[in-house]
């Protein structure tokens, strides 16, 4: 692999991406200045689906607007210069033997996919994050690879103790560096880890058919960038395979399935230019007809009225097809702090998994079924596993679209996730006449949203006892879930947080 400028850029952005991923965590400061959300805030697919779904704009996505403009000027360069998933594909694709391309994907599939997704967004169901390549990558990292790394690091370290005893201290500095700066702080396992991994691996399985198969035939972000790139000021010349050579067919990773350059798929990777034996390839400025789309060439999938209408209709149907929600599950649909409106959340959430990565107490998990299919991968709090830390505002800081709003601490502390409810059938002072009050002890509200009454009673052995019986002050409870988390009952907690309708 020759180290050309685009390659260097690819590696730098991959390194940057991984670095940002690692530092999207609590590092002793209440504020996170840069996070991996940069990759979403500069993501035109996120921008377009946000605008379609919300029918508005947010300044958070200004970088995406700039990226859109750059793409209109330069073409679909993101895929060949920046996209970390594309870089990973480039790194492994040569080791994967190819059979023939899948014909089904060769038509207008990717356009249908993109426009159906956007049409669904128009009907307030924004699923683009499920297919967004960066989101796929981060989900696989957050839910599978990063916990795996943590496990390998920790298990390896304690395994080394079995083998080398105190001798392992010679490499202690290495482990401590990893533990303090790289490995996850807490051992957390995520639901949907396997599915996230499967989606990620599916992209590499696609490489068995042709190079950058996902990028040229499926990826909705790439498709969108390709459409925008049609207007590019630069255009590859010559526009077709040269009769006397034809090497570009193997050099080009995306755009030469045919004799003619598939302009939508040209990712500006410069492979053809670098490797051309005759130095024929150039990307000159189109002085004469700048910004005019190049769609007139034959056999190029064109945006037709039919496709457009078809996408809108299927988008509409699909947006309504998964509306069923189970009321009891809705009860436990605990969204991150500051999320006021479920419909609004559904429109804005990219399902990128960053809030779950950053969550201090590992309270947030990707949802599978609580909110129906349309809520897949969106964050829910599972209080028995982790609670919302009272003084922490990190999830709102890393959310790329403001689906979880970035709130000042005092406001976040008052924003309501739900309300705790005590089950007297199992709560110790009520059910067993034993004192406990662990919930009251942990309640972070300074005037205590859990209080207790002291009641004189006779216990089951006939002894006089003074019982402290807890109760919830609904107006003060913000549903952080620490009570449910710390309740010392085995299995089900005697105090549980339920989503509260906000008036």
């Amino acid at each position: 692999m020759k180290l050309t400028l685009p390659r260097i850029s690819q590696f730098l952005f991959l390194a940057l991406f991984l670095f940002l991923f690692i530092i999207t965590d609590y590092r002793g400061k209440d504020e996170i200045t840069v996070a991996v959300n940069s990759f979403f805030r500069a993501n035109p697919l996120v921008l377009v689906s946000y605008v379609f779904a919300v029918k508005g704009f947010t300044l958070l996505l200004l970088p995406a607007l700039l990226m859109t403009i750059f793409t209109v000027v330069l073409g679909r360069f993101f895929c060949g210069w920046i996209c970390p998933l594309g870089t990973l594909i480039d790194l492994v694709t040569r080791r994967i033997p190819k059979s023939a391309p899948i014909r089904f994907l060769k038509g207008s599939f990717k356009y249908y996919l993109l426009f159906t997704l956007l049409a669904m967004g128009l009907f307030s169901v924004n699923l683009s994050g499920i297919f967004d390549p960066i989101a796929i990558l981060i989900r696989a990292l957050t839910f599978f690879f990063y916990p795996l790394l943590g496990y390998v690091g920790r298990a390896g370290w304690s395994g080394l103790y079995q083998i080398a005893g105190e001798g392992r201290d010679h490499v202690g500095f290495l482990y401590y560096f990893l533990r303090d700066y790289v490995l996850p702080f807490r051992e957390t396992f995520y639901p949907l880890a396997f599915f996230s991994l499967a989606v990620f691996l599916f992209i590499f399985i696609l490489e068995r058919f042709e190079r950058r198969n996902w990028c040229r035939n499926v990826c909705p972000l790439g498709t969108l960038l390709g459409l925008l790139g049609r207007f590019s000021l630069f255009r590859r010349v010559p526009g077709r395979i040269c009769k006397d050579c034809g090497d570009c067919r193997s050099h080009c990773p995306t755009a030469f399935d045919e004799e003619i350059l598939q302009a939508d798929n040209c990712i500006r990777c410069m492979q053809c230019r670098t490797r051309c034996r005759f130095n024929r390839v150039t990307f000159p400025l189109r002085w004469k007809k700048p910004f005019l789309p190049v769609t007139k060439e034959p056999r190029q999938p064109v945006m037709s009225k039919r496709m457009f209408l078809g996408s809108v209709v299927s988008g509409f149907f699909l947006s309504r097809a998964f509306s069923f929600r189970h009321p009891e599950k809705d009860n436990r649909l605990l969204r991150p702090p500051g999320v006021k409106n479920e419909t609004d959340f559904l429109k804005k959430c990219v399902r990128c998994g960053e809030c779950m990565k950053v969550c201090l107490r590992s309270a947030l998990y990707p949802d599978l079924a609580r909110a129906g299919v349309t809520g897949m991968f969106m964050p829910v709090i599972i209080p028995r596993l982790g609670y919302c830390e009272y003084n922490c505002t990190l999830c709102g800081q890393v959310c790329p679209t403001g689906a979880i709003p970035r709130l000042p601490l005092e406001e976040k502390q008052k924003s309501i996730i739900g309300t705790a409810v005590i089950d007297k059938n199992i709560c110790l002072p009520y059910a067993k006449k034993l004192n406990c009050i662990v919930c009251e002890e942990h309640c972070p509200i300074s005037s205590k949203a859990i209080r207790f009454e002291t009641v004189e009673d006779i216990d089951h052995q006939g002894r006089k006892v003074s019982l402290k019986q807890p109760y919830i002050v609904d107006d003060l409870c913000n549903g952080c879930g620490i009570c449910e988390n710390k309740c010392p009952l085995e299995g089900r907690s005697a105090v549980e947080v339920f989503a509260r309708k906000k008036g």
Partner: protein
Amino acid sequence: MKRRDFLKLGLTSLVASQFPRTLFGQTAPPAVAVSEGTDYAAVTRKTIGALGGMKAFVKPGSTVVVKPNIGWDRKPEYAANTHPLVVKTIVEECLASGAKKVKVFDNTCNDARRCYENSGIQGALRGMKNVDVRFVENDRFRKTALNGRFLKEWPLYDDALNADVFINVPIAKHHGLTGLTLGLKNMMGIMGDNRGYIHRSIEDALCDINSLVRSHLVIIDATRILTDHGPQGGNLKDVKVLNKVIASRDIVAADAYATTLFGMKPQDISTTVAAYKRGLGEMDVKKMKVLSFRF
């Protein structure tokens, strides 16, 4: 140890064993040192000095655990965690007495990183040599036989079990269940697992733990105390600044004396009473030798 020393010690021990136990220490009134002042480092030093100085507790080359309360994600002024200056001074004294290693930790209630950071304790001890301020690691709890009244066995932190000297440094706070949380209850910070379980019989459970892991020295931070809505607090109105530090070898005596600072009687605190009854120390303030200093 030389052979002569060994023989001497052996012989005296043998002779001593024949005397009634009361002759050695048991009935001698427990000393409780109390100092007051706004320079918390000086106050802490003075309090330890009154008990014979840290050298009386820490022998050169020993491993010391200093166990403050770092349980909550609160800033020092909220009186939810032990004051960082008190902790720092104790650690310095340990090192000055020749401690090989000083370990400072707590099994926190809130996120450990936030507690260590915002309590100010991690910052106060940063860069000190031979001092470990590490988060509690789950695989280092050892299932330990207690054979107590309530707890038969429980996972306890290995650092606490292996320490040559254990210095218990709680902050004096209000607590919903036990009235106050002081030295006896601060030992919950070496417990692993689902430790909220012990709340159902907290008096016996704390005695069980404190019988196994004895605090060689208890230093109660009462520089500021939390008078209500403990142990988390969160409201400065509940905080009272007393500028006091209390120390004793006797954990029950230290707790009992600290109770009086809240205008309460030691008899009001069931954990103190239980510990007294189990012979863990003296709870009658009148029977203590209180050494007060003020500056």
